[in-house]
């Protein structure tokens, strides 16, 4: 996944109706758990104590998505740029649905957009999932 390919000149500026483009960068937060209750992790202590190795794949993707984030933020300052964990489904699914519908997608197309967005790593622009990637980093 290359960050350079995302910063397309066509994405610059606003939509025809004046709204800003909405980009959702989906990626898992390392050491984030749902339903593990209040006993799931130790924040940065978790990483400091050795948890980094467990979540190295998530961390590597976080850093790659971070590159995309920085490139987009620098190239297109007007963007509505959101980074979200795919497990934050209460926010993510409705947000993609709304974005897809606002950009003219029909009900089924919007549902398809929602279904495509919830990957461990994804880049969603105005309700369209442009990039999805595996989370495991394959080493040579």
């Amino acid at each position, binding site marked *: 996944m290359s960050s350079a390919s995302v910063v397309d000149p066509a994405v610059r500026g606003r939509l025809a109706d004046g709204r800003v483009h909405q980009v959702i*960068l989906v990626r*898992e*937060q390392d050491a*984030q*758990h*749902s*339903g*593990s*209750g*209040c*006993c*799931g*992790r*130790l*924040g*940065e*202590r*978790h990483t400091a*104590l*050795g*948890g980094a190795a*467990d*979540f190295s*794949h*998530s961390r590597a993707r*976080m*850093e790659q*998505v*971070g*590159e995309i*984030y*920085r490139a987009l*933020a620098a190239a297109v300052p007007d963007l509505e740029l*959101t*980074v*979200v*964990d*795919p*497990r*934050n*489904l*209460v*926010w*993510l*699914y409705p947000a993609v649905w709304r974005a897809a519908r606002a950009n003219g997608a029909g009900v089924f197309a919007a549902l398809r957009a*929602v*279904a*495509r*967005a*919830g*990957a*461990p*790593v*994804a880049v969603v622009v105005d309700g369209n*999932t442009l990039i*999805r*990637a*595996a*989370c*495991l980093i394959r080493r040579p």
Partner: protein
Amino acid sequence: MPAFLLIVITLVAFYFAYRFYSRYLAEKVYRLDPNFVTPAHAMRDGVDFVPTHKHVLLGHHFTSVAGAAPIVGPAIAVYWGWLPALTWVILGTIFAAGVHDFGSIVVSARNRGQNIGTLSGKVVSARASTLFLLIIFFLLTLVNAVFGVVMAILFEKNPGAVVPALIVIPIAVFIGQWAYRMGRSIVIPSILGLLLLYAAIPVGQAYPIYVDGLAEAVGLSVRTTWIILIFAYTWIASRLPVWVLLQPRDYINGQQLIVALVVIFLGVLIGWDTISAPAVNEVAPNSPHWFPYLFITVACGAISGFHSLVASGTTSKQLGNETEARFVGYGGALGEGALALAAILACTAGLGAAGDWNAAYADFGAASGGALGHFVTGTGHFLSNLGIPATLGATFAAVVVITFAGTTMDTGVRLQRYILEEIAELAGVKALVGRVNLLTTLAVLIPLGLALLPGGDSSGGKGFAFGRLWTLFGTTNQLTAGLALSIIGVWLLARNRNPLAALIPLVFLLFMTTWALLLNLGDFFAKGDWLLLVMDAAIFVLAAWLVVEAFTAFNRERRNPSAGAEES
């Protein structure tokens, strides 16, 4: 009393608390500044430090803090009656958890997003960092012990839940391969996985799995056998790469949390059940008194120290505007309180309608040992209000709790492994450093030993010390909260602000915790429970240590107000 009315009362209280008290905290205590450059902006890197919309952040924060613990505590605490339990949940959420979670985000954001563990060494004293480590060690030991017992009880009493609980494993493994290896979207597989899980519930009912034969063959009780099997599973699960099972199961857990909350509240609204359980229960002789035990039995759901780790570890780094700490921190605490309310309703209105409440809560042993069973039965009744057979509904609730507890144990054992290694390094025990299998085995064996404690609640004839293990867990959780509140209080004092909002819950929690620990000491001594006695004594020493550290830090700041901690 209609159950619906409790929902209304609680939500109205939460609304006014958010509207007025959290605004008071925001404006007068934490003095949130909309122009303050949060770490998310100052150190914006798109990785850890990302300005994030408050609704997105609330979603992250809430799903991280919600789980099985805010269900278990209230499910036990209704033993003293629904009124004390609900009152503590409401007041604790408003005046303790809200202040604590909100304040942890603010103090961390004002300190470059640093974690409470790091801040304890910086704001309170260097020794507090070690204190933090030791509290967490005991907390994790007890977490793993109690959740091991929780799962064993549920499997023993709901053999129909075994098949769906087992089905989750291959589903999660499949989702992990699908998503992490192939990079595909998880939405459809996770929804299908959830449906498959629910479809497995009637299958589990038709083919319940008992381990009686195995238990008899090895000469152990059924529950002991389940506990050993669960810890064996946990050893394996915690040695697997996280993407194989732990992370993909998260997607199912997230969906289950929402489904469970919706069906419980919907079941109450549609069923219009009344609460037959007593408002204040006349408890059996020799039961623990609600004062102080109520305040450590309900930790998560009223106040939980672990929230400060979530609030300061991640949430504070993504805070787009300081003023949004109110919405995320205080709002997240209210959400956790709502989960505790759901547990109270299930164990009072739901259980009362489904069976004999007085028999279920006959004594503290029955109340604590059967707490999750009561929640499951009560939730089953709420689902029956929606047209779903109560037995299927009960299995559904059991599966929800089991999957949450499984995730908690998996992460708990992993964390304990790191903590043990850190303690080994500090103590100079080099034989343990880097020995992952050995550390994992220790992280499993210590809580397993506690979970298998014989004797326990003799009054209930349960043969397990679950109720007392749970209250010990509550004390460590409250001590963690006490440490975070100390940091918040010192931080406020250093800025010449009124620290009472943090100090009052701090003093209250420390008083209740140390009192309960002292009562436990006498109880364990009288019953000859030496292991629990040693553990209780160690936690009491930590509590005393925390009192000394907090007092010293407050005194230092009062005499010589300093920055206390740098601000970004």
